[in-house]
């Protein structure tokens, strides 16, 4: 590792000064500055919504900052388009995989800057050969000519990495690159980062996993609520320091788990299977219990949960609710039976952008608020008011369009929507994904309260602290199967991670 990156003798490869960026209703970044140095890895940490990805998008020309300057080699520049940023030597692996399912792997890597022959036409032979070489470098053993849609999420991510390497970059940005990768691939990525460092690239590395930050980063920068709250050398901080900077208070208070007396089984799932998505799922959920489902992204948890409410059809299996066998063929039947699912993809499956808050909330409960098929607006407003205020929603009015709310508040509307149906069992899939710390606390508090009132809760989460903080029991899934069951007393982060990743021997990294 280089020791002297902080000294002023080395000039930054790229520097941001006084960058601000607002979205309607949200100030995503306010006056942040950041410098990246050649041959050095800077870790950017911060809570969900702290503004990390926004910064990445400004660095790669996708967003334009409201204020502030970007300097490359000490000259001021602007990145009006993604192409301009790439030409200036800034490349990124984005948090979402932004790739094209219908195009080949090779083309995904080179789209926008494909090699041309002397007539100015795309040279496919060279393109495929170059792609194969890049994939090799990214540690992926892939045929560059197959279509992207035939790949799993992890391999898609490798393609995204290869794409980032396809431009001759001086700055490489990685926004949570390991979130979707398996153990082996993560290690290959680490090796790749070492090589990039040796080549003198400046690297910005965003991650929520502290073990890897301490393993590969040289410097750190911490964001909170869109502002920079600390930076320095990794060697000078501890994990606790970082967390304190990120959150602004001690972590414990975030999970207000109440002690609840667990009752008899409410929901029994036996022998659930699906030809391609999951297999042999059996478990019981008891009254007052919060059952955590942990796993890496793509473990098949969401797919399985959706089969419980009739969106995905299982090929075999049975469920019992309060001892009675139930057949559920559609979400409408699930809601009537008292099982509700708060989906993971808020934008696609949860919130109905373009409709007012109260209409979102009452949609699954229309049969209660209406009279013989005719709407009763007064009832609707009453119901919406009750549940949104219990979740501490912040909005101008109840007929405000949901699309104009902040992400966290949208999530509250979504949760309110399903709670308003008065369920027996509520399944929350990544309930706090992308929401700020205050809302998170409100959601967690409310979850606790629901359990105390005798509801049964299934909480799917990929966040270890949330799983550990909120669950009475944890089930771990990997590749569509249950690979571990843990009671609260024996829960440790390490056992969870190991089970989820399928590692037998103790891993060498530090557990969070």
């Amino acid at each position, binding site marked *: 590792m280089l020791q002297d990156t902080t000294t002023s003798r080395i000039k930054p490869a790229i520097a941001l000064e006084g960058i601000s960026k607002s979205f309607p209703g949200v100030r995503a970044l306010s006056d942040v500055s950041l410098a990246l140095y050649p041959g050095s890895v800077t870790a950017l940490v911060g809570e969900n919504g702290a503004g990390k990805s926004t910064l990445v998008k400004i660095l*790669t*020309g*996708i967003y334009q900052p409201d204020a502030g300057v970007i300097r490359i080699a000490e000259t001021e520049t602007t990145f009006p*388009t*993604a*192409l*301009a*940023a*790439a030409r200036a030597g800034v490349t990124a692996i*984005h948090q979402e995989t*932004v*790739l*094209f*399912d*219908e*195009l080949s792997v090779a*083309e995904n890597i080179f*789209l*926008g800057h*494909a090699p041309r022959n002397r007539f*100015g*036409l*795309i040279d*496919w032979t060279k393109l495929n050969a170059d792609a194969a070489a890049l994939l090799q470098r990214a540690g992926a053993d892939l045929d560059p000519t197959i279509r992207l*849609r035939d790949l*799993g*999420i992890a391999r898609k991510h490798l393609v995204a990495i290869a794409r980032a390497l396809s431009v001759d970059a001086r700055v490489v940005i990685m926004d949570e690159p390991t979130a979707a990768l398996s153990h082996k691939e993560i290690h290959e990525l680490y090796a790749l980062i070492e090589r990039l460092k040796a080549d003198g690239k400046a690297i910005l590395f965003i991650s929520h996993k502290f073990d890897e930050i301490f393993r590969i980063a040289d410097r750190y920068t911490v964001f909170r609520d869109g502002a920079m709250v600390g930076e320095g050398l990794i060697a000078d901080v501890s994990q606790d320091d970082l967390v304190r900077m990120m959150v602004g208070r001690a972590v414990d208070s975030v999970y207000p788990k109440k002690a609840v007396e667990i009752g008899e089984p409410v929901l029994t799932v036996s022998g659930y299977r699906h*030809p*391609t*998505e*999951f*297999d042999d799922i059996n478990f019981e959920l008891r009254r007052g219990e919060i059952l955590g489902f942990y796993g890496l992204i*793509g*473990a*098949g948890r969401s*797919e399985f949960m959706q089969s419980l409410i009739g969106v995905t059809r299982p090929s075999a299996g049975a469920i019992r609710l309060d001892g009675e066998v139930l057949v559920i063929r559609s979400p409408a039947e699930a809601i009537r039976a008292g099982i509700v699912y708060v989906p993971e993809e808020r934008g696609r499956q949860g919130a109905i952008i373009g409709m007012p808050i109260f209409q979102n909330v009452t949609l699954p409960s229309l049969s209660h608020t209406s009279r013989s098929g005719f709407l009763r607006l007064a009832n609707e407003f009453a119901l919406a008011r009750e549940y949104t205020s219990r979740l501490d929603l912040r909005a101008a009015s109840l007929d405000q369009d949901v699309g104009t709310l902040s992400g966290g508040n949208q999530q509250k509307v979504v949760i309110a929507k399903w709670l308003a149906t008065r369920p027996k069992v509520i399944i929350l899939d990544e309930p706090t994904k992308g929401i700020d710390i205050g809302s998170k606390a409100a959601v967690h508090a409310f979850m606790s309260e629901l359990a105390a009132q005798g509801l049964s809760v299934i909480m799917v989460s990929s966040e270890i602290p949330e799983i550990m903080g909120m669950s009475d029991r944890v089930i771990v899934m990997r*590749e*569509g*199967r249950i690979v571990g069951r843990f009671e609260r007393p024996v829960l440790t982060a390490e056992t969870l991670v190991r089970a989820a990743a399928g590692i037998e021997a103790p891993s060498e990294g530090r557990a969070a």
Partner: protein
Amino acid sequence: MRLLKNREALLVVATGVLLALVAMRFPAFVAPANLARVYNDTSILIILALGQMAVILTRCIDLSMAANLALCGMAAAMVNTAFPGLPIPLVILAAMTLGASLGMVNGTLVWKLDIPPIVVTLGTLTIYRGLIFVLTDGKWINAHEMSDAFKALPRLELAGAPVLSWLSLAIIALMFVVMSRTPLGRAFYAVGGNPHAAIYTGIDVGRTRFFAYCLSGALAGLSGYLWVSRYAVAYVDIAAGFELDIIAACVIGGISIAGGIGSVTGAVLGALFLGVIKNALPVINISPFAQMAISGTVIIIAVAVNARAERRKGRVILRKAEAV
């Protein structure tokens, strides 16, 4: 087996079966000379389908193509009657320029004002056709008013085939190169396949769509000249309703209306399939009145087949399933 799964192969087989069926009742239909004639008759549809393909690939649609064709055709005929001595290549160039400009109007409205493509082209469809009426007072331009050179070009025989056929072959070749070997062609796929990701790739989504409309407009302009000179007449209603034939050819050819999926081969085969049906029905003595119902049925079947082929196989999470 793998071959059969391929949409284009399936279409080739279907066209082959169709030809075989026709040949059973009327062998002369599959004589090379007649097949060449059928191809020639379908040439204009092929050119138009290729333009529409570019637009559909970018997740848009161009309902104004036939109206654009009619307007450009009329303009070409008017230029020809006004200046009979003007060389025909210049007339064609003028028609294509006008077509491209009309395409630009569509493209600009889609790009700069973000009006949904279907609304834009629904509006310009009536406007373009109306303009022909305003321009001509509804008068026809008949064969005797056009110069001989104007009428002769598409039917001129070159190496055994009319120029019209050669022209469409040239356009096919050109579109092959554009779609597979140029950044613009690949951008069409990218913009339709995932507009969000296209931005991350540095592709300007609106501008790419604009160019798609320019391309479809230019091809409509070219087809306008070809149509008018081939049928030796120009009037307000030429090619009325043809926009649906063009879209049908694309759909049959496996071009996904949701954008991002489709190929030059598919569009050409889709157009040829329709062309064979159109030409075969009168020959095998199926009432011409049945033609409409038959092409409707074919479209529905084609959509169903394509949708099956496109249906997501689902993400494979289980290891064992991935091995299969």
